[in-house]
């Protein structure tokens, strides 16, 4: 596996130093310790574990179908398309849902319902981070020998089911104020951003139109959202929680998605395409002990640069960007925090950069959650699937021409009087 990894990086000058460091450290490590050592450098340019398949249902609103059925669809697609037998799957990561998570044994039930007997079974409860977080953990589990073929599954029928209660401080200190959940919290972020830097609605309109253009080319996008919009449509859409508008937000839908993972060696043996998660960084509760921290800043200021360092890349090397998009402002904040542009300069970057699938930095080329629909807590997998699809060269009419790498992100949870709970960045490479 190691020579293969070295070969693939050949010619990437920016990665050379990292490769040498890696080689030096790897060779100095005793065989028996290498697994442990690799775990600490999750990814870290490693190409020993790969994503070798992906599956996704169509996204729809109030589909009337439930999470188990949707999960059944994606399992069937994985088995049909990617040369693996159900009996070979011995690892399973299941994302928490809005529709079924009242069940404390959700992951265990899901494995049972799907007929899978995993030796590694994980329940991911990081909201929009659950899918890329599941990929990172599955890679560790494969490296550690806990399983050899893993499925990272997310399935949620939020628009057809009941939303469970998050509890904690909400009953006493949040609900009586009537803050409208994430919509209210992001309205606060937008207002604060406007105060500090000036919020340019034209840039948000551009993001809305770019993603909608991509959804029009995505057969899996929610049919209700597959209608063209103009920048004027965004600017005149209804205010929900000023200055946040309807077209700033996602529409909650139903849907499921999954990726298949195994060692690079297994992938080669089966003749499967392989995409490598070469970097991953995650942080929950950025600056939690600084109650007056700026809500226009986030954990992406930590995890963005950290993931890039692991991969030995700089932002200008990133060839497609698949950020978690519950709200348009979240895309702009991530561009700033990860380092694509300076803090407060997101609007200029957006207006100066072609972010269509043909452009310099393609953005959520399936439409993102905002224009393809948010399949509940499976939403974190939506943009991951699109990145993998593009890297497999299966983007169809929206295929990105040069795509050696992708950056996929996740955001999870809305806490009390901060911005969000978890920030995570994954880099995928060919």
């Amino acid at each position, binding site marked *: 596996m190691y020579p293969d990894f070295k070969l693939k990086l050949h010619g990437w000058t920016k990665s050379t130093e990292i490769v040498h460091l890696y080689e030096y450290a790897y060779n100095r490590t005793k065989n028996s310790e290498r697994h442990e050592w690799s775990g600490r450098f999750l990814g870290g340019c490693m190409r020993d574990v790969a994503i070798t398949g992906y599956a996704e249902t169509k996204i729809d609103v109030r589909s009337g179908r439930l999470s188990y059925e949707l999960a059944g669809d994606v399992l069937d697609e994985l088995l049909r398309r990617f040369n693996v037998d159900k009996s070979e799957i011995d690892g399973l990561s299941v994302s928490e849902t809005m529709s079924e998570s009242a069940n404390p044994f959700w992951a265990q039930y899901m494995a049972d319902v799907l007929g899978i007997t995993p030796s590694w079974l994980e329940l991911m409860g990081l909201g929009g981070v659950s899918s890329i977080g599941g990929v990172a953990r599955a890679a560790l589990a494969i490296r550690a020998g806990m399983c050899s073929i893993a499925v990272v599954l997310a399935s949620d029928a939020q628009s057809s089911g009941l939303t469970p209660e998050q509890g904690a401080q909400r*009953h*006493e200190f949040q609900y009586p*104020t*009537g803050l*409208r959940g994430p919509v209210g919290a992001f309205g*606060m972020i937008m207002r604060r951003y406007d105060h500090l830097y000036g919020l340019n609605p034209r840039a948000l309109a551009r993001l809305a139109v770019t993603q909608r253009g991509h959804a029009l080319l995505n057969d899996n996008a929610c049919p209700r959202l597959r209608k063209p919009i103009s920048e004027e449509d965004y600017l005149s859409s209804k205010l929900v*929680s000023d200055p946040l508008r309807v077209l700033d937000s996602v529409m909650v839908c139903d849907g499921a998605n999954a990726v298949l993972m195994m060692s690079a060696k297994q992938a080669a043996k089966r003749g499967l395409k392989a995409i490598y998660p070469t970097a991953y960084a995650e942080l929950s509760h950025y600056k939690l002990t600084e109650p*007056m921290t700026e809500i226009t800043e986030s954990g992406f200021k930590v995890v963005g640069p950290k993931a890039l360092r692991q991969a030995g890349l700089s932002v200008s090397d990133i060839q497609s960007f698949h950020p978690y998009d519950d709200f348009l402002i979240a895309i702009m904040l991530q561009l700033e925090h990860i380092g694509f542009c300076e803090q407060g300069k997101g609007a200029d970057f957006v207006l100066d950069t072609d972010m269509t699938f043909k452009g310099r930095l393609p953005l959520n080329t399936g439409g993102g959650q905002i224009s393809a629909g948010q399949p509940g807590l499976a939403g974190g997998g939506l943009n991951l699937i699109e990145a993998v699809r593009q890297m497999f060269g299966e983007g169809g009419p929206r295929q990105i021409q040069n795509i050696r790498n992708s950056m996929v992100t996740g955001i999870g949870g809305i806490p009390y*009087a901060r911005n969000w709970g978890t920030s995570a960045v994954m880099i995928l490479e060919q």
Partner: protein
Amino acid sequence: MADGVSAQRPLPKLGSYIDTKEFWEGARRGKLMLQYCTETQRFQHYPRPNSLYTGRRTIEWREASGFGTVYSWTMTRSAWPGHEARLPYICAYVDLDEKIRFLCNLVDCSETDVTIGMPVEVRWDRLSDDIVFPDFAPRRSWK
């Protein structure tokens, strides 16, 4: 938004995750009670079982000034369930003088009055015989 306060909102479920008696008893007496870490001399809110700063149970309850400034705010035009009759209403983050951020409603003001940095003070909304809830309003001396 209408002046004054409105009882048309769901009652908080007191003590639903930890013991918050001190906060609600204080509220009934018109005192804004906050947790205070005796080791780091810092306040914290929402209430937690331990100090946010030390992880130890080095906390006591102290009365706060009830003064702060608006950090950010949003005009809610689409209601959280149970708040339909209050539409539209202002939700805000207020930075208290005790250096914590407090989620609340701004009352006794319209959206044209509100600015970030505006000094505010606590106002008490009697929701029932037993439950009084803190809102914030422009500081009287400032308005």
